[in-house]
């Protein structure tokens, strides 16, 4: 039993930390720290900095131009990125489609698409969910009908994160209505500039504009954009869901949020005493800190398993539930720590064009927005209820 990272892994952590400190633009880090939305340029800028270093493809095997790092190094890298408030690496191309193409794509698709994910040519988005197919994804209806050397696509995708910036979308489409719903699904790559595609923004309850609807009306897609075989798309999608889940718990991000919250609870005062000394608040804060401590070990256990070549099963679902519940509790406590000023909906000081008052401390001007935004975490990525179904199915076997 040894809970420590090896000296080599610790050196690696130091190397990553130092490099981030020297290369992460402070104005970007501040926005991430304050949960302020990033512009497309800012996100691309950080990805290009990582790309030049060769770390953008940190989760890819060396044969496809990746770092070839194992699960532990990937975890350390992600952990350091989160602690330093780096923008998250957009997962859609690099972490979702990339591995699918490596495993199931043609040589031509690999050669064409993989480099373009890295150099900023293609911004990818994901076309899975539909208005009628949320948790029950296999009931999706967007159809692709073969017409010579093209598919004609009709239907609607939704919850398409950052689709407003996207050049390409990977979609699950229905190519057959025979047999079980899972057996008629194909995996298709579609150019967002194609005629017949319309992107409509969905404004979320926090006022954010991150997700979209994508409508397809007689969109022509070349058959060479089919990944793998027709009607095998469900297998590829499932592969994607089980791949790369070493950091699903978000330990680094939550630790960083916890530190911020502790500072806030010290500076916020009630009757001249820090909020951190209020027994009820202190108890909730301590409980979430302990949950996080335990989850950190649970995460390392899963990581050690993955490093040894094991495939995490129910543990991924457990970490998703734990991680998102902890995240939500932290955003809830942050909102509460602000008291009356949590009502204000004001931009941060560094956001242009705002001359009004700031009633919340710097970095906490949108704490309620962040709280509302984080309600999504227990819904997306397979809702926590779906994760519970998976856990019981895998362990009890029913």
């Amino acid at each position, binding site marked *: 039993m040894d809970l420590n990272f090896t000296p080599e892994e610790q050196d690696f952590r130091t190397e990553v930390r130092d490099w981030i400190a020297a290369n992460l633009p402070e104005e970007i880090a501040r926005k991430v720290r304050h949960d302020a939305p990033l512009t497309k340029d800012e996100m691309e800028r950080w990805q290009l900095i990582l790309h030049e270093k060769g770390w953008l493809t940190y989760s890819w095997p060396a044969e496809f131009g990746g770092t070839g790092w194992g699960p532990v190094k990937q975890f350390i890298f992600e952990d350091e990125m989160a602690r330093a408030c780096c923008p998250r690496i957009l997962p859609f191309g690099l972490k979702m489609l990339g591995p699918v193409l490596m495993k199931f794509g043609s040589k031509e698709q690999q050669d064409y698409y993989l480099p373009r994910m890295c150099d900023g040519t293609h911004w990818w988005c994901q076309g899975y969910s539909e208005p009628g197919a949320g948790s029950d994804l296999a009931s999706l209806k967007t159809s692709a009908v073969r017409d010579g050397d093209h598919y004609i696509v009709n239907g609607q995708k939704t919850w398409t994160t950052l689709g407003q910036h996207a050049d390409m979308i990977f979609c699950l489409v229905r190519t057959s209505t025979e047999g079980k719903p899972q057996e008629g699904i194909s995996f298709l790559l579609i150019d967002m500039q194609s005629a017949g595609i319309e992107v409509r923004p969905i404004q979320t309850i926090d006022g954010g504009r991150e997700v979209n609807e994508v409508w397809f009306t007689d969109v022509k897609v070349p058959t060479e954009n089919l990944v793998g075989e027709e009607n095998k798309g469900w297998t590829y999608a499932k592969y994607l869901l089980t791949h790369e889940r070493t950091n699903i718990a978000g330990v680094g991000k939550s630790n960083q949020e916890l530190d911020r919250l502790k500072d806030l609870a010290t500076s916020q005062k009630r009757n001249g005493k820090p909020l951190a000394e209020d027994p009820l608040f*202190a108890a909730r804060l*301590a409980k979430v800190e302990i949950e996080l401590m335990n989850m950190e070990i649970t995460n390392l256990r899963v990581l050690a398993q993955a490093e040894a070549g094991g495939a995490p099963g129910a543990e991924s679902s457990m970490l998703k539930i734990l991680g998102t519940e902890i995240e939500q509790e932290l955003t809830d406590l942050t909102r509460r720590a602000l008291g009356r000023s949590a009502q204000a909906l004001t931009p941060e000081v560094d956001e242009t064009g705002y001359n009004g008052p700031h009633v919340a401390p710097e970095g906490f001007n949108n704490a309620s927005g962040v709280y509302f935004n984080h309600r999504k975490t227990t819904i997306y990525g397979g809702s926590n209820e779906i994760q519970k179904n998976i856990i019981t199915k895998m362990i009890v076997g029913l």
Partner: protein
Amino acid sequence: MDFSHNETRRMLADTIERYLRDKYPLGPRVEAGNSDAGFQPAHYEALAELGVLAALFSEDLGGFGGEGFDIAVVFEELGKRLVNEPVLDSALVPGSILGLAGKTDALEEIIAGAARYALAAEEPQALYDLTDVETTANKSGDGYTLTGTKTVVKYAEGAAGYIVSAQNDGKLSLFLVAPDVAERRDFITSDGGRAAELSFTDAPAELLLEDGAAALEDAADRAIVALSAEALGIMQTIREMTIEYLRTRKQFGVVIGKFQALQHRMAEMLLEIEQARSAVINAANALGSKSGAEKARILAATKYSIGRIGQLVAEESIQMHGGIGMTWEYDLGHYAKRLIMIDHEWGDQDFHLARFIELGRAA
């Protein structure tokens, strides 16, 4: 990182597991625990012979283990079979203190299973706080006499001596008291075990440690690792029983594990048991590798977690079993009772949450 136990500990776990599987049915354990017998001495001696007690102490003290993970491995196995032979109360806790006091002969007897001792530290007014002591020590000739009352002294009956904490001229000292000079009133505990209330009136006592606070804290740390690992073992047995029950019990023509209401309760329980395992690993690791407030904070976090999760597992498993889980005849209830009673030893979840907060403020 490596989350597997070394060869020696795996062998130790196997040895205990095999012995208990072959020789330790639950029936006699429940019967002994809920009668004046308290436990089964033959099993206690057999565990000593298997090296279970020696595994709890370092080589310096005549054992062959003594690290956090040695303690955790032993108690996880004991928990799985709901062993109530007083390995914690008669050996680990008093042995740790006697070792620090240099009582090597007594410790040797403990490790051999030839003598048992008992710690009498908590008082009726203290509610888990071992520094809240009203028992007083007075100098008397070359020695001391003690006056006061200690509550819920586990397995006091049959002990070769009591280790008693007392106020001694501004210090919290630890004394050794012979059993015949104390007034002892024995009773049965809710989880099937034995305890006593001890009263001392000018009882002659031998000074073990003039400044006993550190030794008490060390014993508490070890006890927390042991109890938490025992709780984890119990949770695993409950986990297996509940999985089996969900797979076989039928209602409305289907096995009840098909019902989503129960699936989600079960998923929550399974996830929390993994968190409990992580908490135990954290504590066992901290026992030897951390110090001061950092170590104390991890141990408090673990005991809090075990208290909270233990209660959840006890309550949820009974609920998922339905009526059968309420019966004395069925095994589950006995496991659940011990799980809840563990929260009443060495500080419950509220006590340790408050301690965690206090330690965080001091840091």
